[in-house]
């Protein structure tokens, strides 16, 4: 199927999320839509998928103008979209999810659908088990399931919105292979991304959006610098980090085990020194989250001992960890990190603590003004956290950190951020290391870990199977460790 979008507009009040976009996706190709956060990529795709109504423009499918208003209508016309957050039913099994929306009538068609699903899984070399409950799957596996479900509905055009966010390199490889296969079978794939590397590796052609308009398009082979300038106007500077001298031991774990995620954490022993920047690598859900939460005092270890600056912390509550200067920033900002309904100013007032009965609104206001400017948060003191974009939420969280922190624990701190925001975050965090703060972060992007961390811990199946200095290893060796081979 050939898709043509003509002069597409989508306006929200005075904001023009899409402002006259023209785009053609040929049959049997993989087409990349590139752009930084807020460029209008997702909006355009949600309109195409029937998820939100357009303000103006025409959608032409195989030379016929089509008008539809719901995702179901769109999928009947052969267009299906994989959203950033999987839309499935976690308490049901993979097979049950697969059957939803397909299996009608009274008779039990489980057998038939099981066969169909297993065929599809084999066809794409996926690894999901039809009988496992969806809540036990990783994001990458849920993606696979959703993709197979769309395909069995007869989708001809598959739209993927940031599919490589939060999935491991292995799953990414499986995903990319399956997409190439789809294209070779004559289906069209549209990949929405802000990751240059993904688009370069996969797409036959990319179109770049900036502020709701098309700024250019390019075919293979790509010129990365030119693409970056289409995305940002000018290429952002790569992050640089000056060497830091380490101080004394901040955190010391001995034989720590704990529960959580799918693998838990077992028998983890490490020492972290002042000024260290440690990257946690590994498949998502291999114990990094448990590790960070135990170090932060949120999850209690089932076994082992943990100390800060030599002081034993076993049996201490969260408050004691806070007092020791430990800060944890979770990956899901609105769910665990910020108060969605509270304004920026209220966040600062909340952080202030202190023993006074009344809130010092004047101070909170001036502090929030000062910090939002310094941290380049796009919002006023009265903007509520929910209304901020992902990058701005992350900046707000960082601006709330105390300078006196001794240990920063960051779970995927750059998840969903564009290149510019990412660089800014790392530049900011490196200043903490200069002040002798130890920083531990997890990431699904091995290149990011390689370029940022001084020391790398590789998690596999709930254990740390590799603990190495950055300059003593390479990507290949780490990739092997991530897959469980040391």
């Amino acid at each position, binding site marked *: 199927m050939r898709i043509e979008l003509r002069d597409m507009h989508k306006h929200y009040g005075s904001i023009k999320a899409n402002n006259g976009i023209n785009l053609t996706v040929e049959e049997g190709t993989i087409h990349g839509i590139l752009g930084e956060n807020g460029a209008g990529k997702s*909006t355009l795709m949600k309109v195409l998928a029937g998820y939100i109504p357009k303000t103006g423009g025409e959608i032409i499918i195989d030379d016929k103008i089509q008008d539809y208003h719901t995702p179901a209508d769109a999928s009947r016309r052969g267009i299906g979209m994989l959203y950033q957050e999987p839309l499935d039913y976690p308490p049901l099994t993979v097979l049950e999810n697969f059957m939803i929306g397909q299996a009608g009538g009274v008779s039990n068609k489980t057998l038939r659908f099981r066969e169909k699903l297993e065929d599809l899984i084999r066809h794409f070399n996926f690894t999901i088990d039809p009988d496992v409950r969806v809540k036990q799957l990783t994001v990458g596996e849920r993606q696979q399931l959703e993709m197979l479900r769309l395909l069995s509905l007869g989708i001809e055009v598959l739209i993927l919105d940031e599919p490589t966010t939060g999935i491991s390199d292995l799953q990414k490889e499986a995903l990319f292979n399956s997409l190439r296969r789809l294209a070779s079978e004559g289906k069209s794939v549209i990949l929405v991304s802000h990751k240059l590397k993904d688009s370069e590796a996969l797409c036959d052609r990319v179109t770049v959006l900036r502020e709701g308009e098309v700024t250019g398009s390019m075919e293979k082979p790509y010129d990365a610098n030119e693409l970056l300038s289409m995305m940002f106007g000018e290429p952002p500077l790569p992050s640089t980090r000056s060497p830091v001298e380490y101080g004394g031991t901040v955190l010391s774990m001995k034989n720590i085990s704990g529960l959580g995620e799918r693998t838990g954490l077992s028998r983890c022993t490490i020492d972290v020194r002042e000024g260290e920047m440690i990257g946690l690598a590994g498949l998502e859900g291999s114990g990094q989250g448990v590790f960070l939460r135990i170090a932060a005092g949120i999850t209690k270890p089932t076994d082992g001992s943990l100390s800060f600056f030599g002081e034993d912390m076993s049996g201490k509550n969260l408050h004691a960890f806070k007092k020791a200067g430990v800060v944890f920033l979770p990956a899901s900002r609105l769910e665990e990190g910020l108060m969605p309904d509270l304004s920026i100013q209220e966040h600062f007032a909340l952080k202030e603590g202190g023993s006074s009965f009344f*809130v010092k609104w004047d101070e909170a206001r001036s502090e929030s003004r000062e910090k939002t400017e310094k941290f380049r948060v796009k919002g006023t003191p009265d903007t509520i956290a929910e209304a901020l974009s992902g990058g701005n939420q992350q900046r707000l969280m960082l601006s709330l950190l105390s300078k006196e922190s001794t240990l920063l624990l960051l779970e995927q701190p750059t998840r969903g951020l564009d290149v510019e925001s990412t660089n800014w975050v790392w530049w900011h965090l490196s200043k903490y290391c200069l002040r002798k703060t130890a920083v531990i972060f997890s990431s699904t992007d091995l290149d990011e870990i390689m370029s940022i961390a001084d020391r790398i811990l590789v998690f596999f199946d709930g254990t740390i199977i590799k603990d190495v200095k950055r300059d003593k290893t390479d990507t290949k060796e780490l990739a092997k460790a991530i897959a469980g081979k040391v």
Partner: protein
Amino acid sequence: MQESNGINTSVSRRDNAIARFSRDLVITVLVVVSFTTLIIVLAGAPPLAAYYHIFKGSLGSWVKLGHVIRVWIPLTLCTCGLLYTFRIGLWNIGVEGQVIMGAVFTTYVLRFGMDGRMANFFLIAAFTAGVAGGALWALIAGYLKTKGGVNEIFAGLGLNFVAQGIILWLIFGPWKRAGIASMSGTELLPRELWLSYVSTIRLSPLGLSLALCAIIVTAIMLRYTKIGLCLKALGSNPNAAHIFDLNTRLYMLLAMVFAGGFAGLAGSMQVTGVYHRLIPAISSNYGYLALLVAMLSNYNVWIGPVVAFFFACLNVGSIQLPMMLQMDSSLSGVIQGALVLAALAVHAWRIRARRIAEETWY
């Protein structure tokens, strides 16, 4: 893009909000009026006359207005209390039982002063006991919630039944009048223990000022204090409490204490200012009604008392209906219920519309 005209957008946003609010209000009122009119017509009464009698019965004279304010006081106290629990996201449906326990504790103290001596001392002690009684009853629900993981709605509802049981047992058992036990309640308090009132309109200035104080205190607490801010924060996202080092359980209990305290105060007012004895229906369902008031006022501390006044008018005015039109006075309940349902429906509908319009665009 958004910052450049930040001021303009915020002004126009406020204009929009006012326009939206007025539009919602008109729609809600229209829905309710047509629904109520339909009910009245079905009941075989003339609608205009019914509305007229409700109006005349509530605001038709100073005495009637005094009645309305006597209803408004406990309703406002309960509503103020509920604002604390709603702020932190708790559904304190047990407010009804908290009013009852406030009344019970008040009566318990006053029974020691039946000879009328040291009246002021006993009144102060009784009010304190009433506040404590309501707070204690709320704390039980709060404790079940924070320690036992029992949903506060179930705990509150259960405790309402227990409180109702206790009050009936007291009135027909230990506290019955010598020789008789009846629904009309315990022995009348001596005059000295009645809250002083302006005789022409039977309205207690002290009660009125307590309610006004409650509004102001609540407004200040929610807007200007750390407690208010923390309640709002935890109501917004309890999962982020650890980031800001907030003790969720403590604040939940605190909110319950405030809600129960205000409800208990309402119970004290009912005993000392209105009925001058303990009766089985001492709470007059003001607790449940206050839940409706809080919801209808969109949990706003300034709109709440206005809505409470309107509800009080309906309650007092509809007493006229059986006499004048041979209609049941429960029409006020129909109107109140319809109002809340319509308001919630309009509200939900608006949120949905906004969600669709503001679909994230990046």
